């Protein structure tokens, strides 16, 4: 376990009063309360911190007609599409990274199986700019992005705008305000101040862009742990609606310093997703057949979890200074 949150006796953290109210909920409560049929739901985490536990709870609660948003729809989106939660996918790159294709998504797009799936695609940069516009309270974001490509031909949301200063023609994307953002992180306090290290992806942008935010963490820590290292806070409590403490919630993706990507699971997925019946069995066994993530952890077993734990590589402490 990383030592970042622990205190040592020679370096005491000053006591501060806990100001914010607890937003800690179980995963079941958080999804039940904040994810509704028909919502636009962004599930981010770029290879790192993919919200598998939350996505699988959405499947378990049988949400329907969701517009799912993600830069890189991968195994989780394949599962959510196969389980029938989605009417639409908004994305930048579809695939099982480093392995192959998402066959459930492909079946839906290529053959409308088991049902039609609307798609709306961007470059990574284009979709990131949509998040950034929404998080910044702007109606659109200018970029040099997709000129000379066929993307605007198939996506009417890609437009152009003249720079009012130079007259240059710029590409433009509209703000994307998700109904819900689900963000995984290493740790947060009970009020939702959320700390991430390693790849930060678009976690901060989607948290500021969304109407409702669920944060899912490996550990809930006391507020003074967060306040001892404010530079590491990516998301402030004020935009967070629920904090869910759920160890191993990003498995089979990774959490920097906690566990590595379970590549065997990504490789196995290539076989599972090719066969709709086998995919159905996977969902029965690992999602519908389990009551919660605690049961998933137990099923995963100690051996797998031990295999995925990295060795330590600690950052040195920094001195913020005491200015009393």
């Amino acid at each position, binding site marked *: 376990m990383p030592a970042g949150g622990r205190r040592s006796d020679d370096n005491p953290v000053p006591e501060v009063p806990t100001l914010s109210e607890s937003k800690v909920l179980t995963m079941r409560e958080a999804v039940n309360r904040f994810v509704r049929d028909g919502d636009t739901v962004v599930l981010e985490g*770029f*290879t*790192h911190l993919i919200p598998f536990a939350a996505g699988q709870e959405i499947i378990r609660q049988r949400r329907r007609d969701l517009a799912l948003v993600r*830069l*890189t729809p991968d195994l989780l989106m394949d599962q959510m599409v196969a389980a029938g939660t989605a009417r639409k996918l908004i*994305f*930048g*790159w*579809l*695939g099982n*990274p*480093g392995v192959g*294709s998402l066959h459930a*998504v*492909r079946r839906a*797009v*290529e053959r409308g199986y088991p049902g039609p799936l609307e798609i709306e*695609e*961007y*470059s*990574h*940069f*284009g979709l*990131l*700019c949509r*998040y*950034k516009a929404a998080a910044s309270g702007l109606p659109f974001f200018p*970029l*040099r*992005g*997709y*000129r*000379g*490509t*066929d*993307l605007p*031909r*198939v996506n009417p949301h890609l437009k152009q705008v003249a720079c009012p200063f130079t007259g*240059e*023609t710029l590409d433009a994307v509209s703000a994307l305000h998700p109904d819900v953002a689900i963000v995984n992180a290493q740790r947060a306090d009970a009020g939702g101040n959320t700390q991430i*290290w*390693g*790849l*930060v*992806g*678009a976690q*901060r*942008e989607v948290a500021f862009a969304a109407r409702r935010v669920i944060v899912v963490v490996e550990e809930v820590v006391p507020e003074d742990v967060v306040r001892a290292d404010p530079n590491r806070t990516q998301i402030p409590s004020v935009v967070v609606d629920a904090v869910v403490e759920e160890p191993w919630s990003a498995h089979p993706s*990774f959490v*920097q310093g906690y566990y*590595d*990507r379970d*590549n065997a699971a990504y490789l196995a997925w290539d076989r599972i997703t090719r066969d709709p019946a086998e995919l159905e069995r996977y969902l029965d066994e690992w999602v519908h057949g389990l009551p919660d993530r605690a049961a998933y952890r137990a099923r995963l077993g100690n051996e797998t979890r031990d295999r995925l734990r*990295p060795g330590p*590589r600690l950052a040195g402490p920094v001195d913020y200074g005491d200015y009393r």
Partner: protein
Amino acid sequence: MTSGPGAPTRAEIMVFAACREVRDGDCVFVGVGLPNLAVQLALRLHAPRCHLIYESGVFGARPVRLPISIGDPCLVSGAAQVLPMAETFLYFLQGGRTDLGFLGAAQIDRYGNLNTTVVGRDYDHPRVRLPGAGGAPDIALNAHRTVVIARQDRRKFVERLDFRTTVGWAEGGTSREAIGAPGGGPSRVITDLGVYGFDAETREMTLESVHPGVTLEQVREATGWDLKAGSPLGTTEAPDAAMLRLLREELDPDRIYLKG
């Protein structure tokens, strides 16, 4: 190869050719697979001061194992900087700080335009749904040089793309400048058969060298248009025994990317 590890495979020749495109001090946008091996090799040979940038939000990566994806945790541990993905695109790419980017493709045309979106002309009913754009359009638009690495056959090297995901030299000539593309455009294409450059005026892909043992006829067979070839046609330099050892024993010991 007279002694040592044996003759290089096509994949190893591709990696070595890509490695030579890296200049010391370059900021390089790296992908997984062959480009990653190429840059790792360049770091150990002629470009020890190049900076590895990954679109996942890492600058100055020094991975101690072979990364499985562009977001592998080994890219973070020991890196110089981690930044939000949006800033990676905004500052390093659009801000003009990227010297070299590597790209792959399912289809490429004679002007180095790429398709990674769909196979089949009907976008709404594609024969094959491919992964899509990812970071490619922005790398191709903004990097000072882009190098495309792809295996070559007639289904890949096509007269006309089914979909243009990523712009290269557009329709050739000055058409890339005309659309306001800020970066330098594609500079090389490296396949399992040969290495290509682009004509300075027409911007058409031109075969510069064939790999050892490959004939011009074979390359023409694997190209869906009337291919221009340089004269005299060179032979691609193959990695020597020391480089092969580095590739096989240190960089990809499990032969994950070098098998072909």
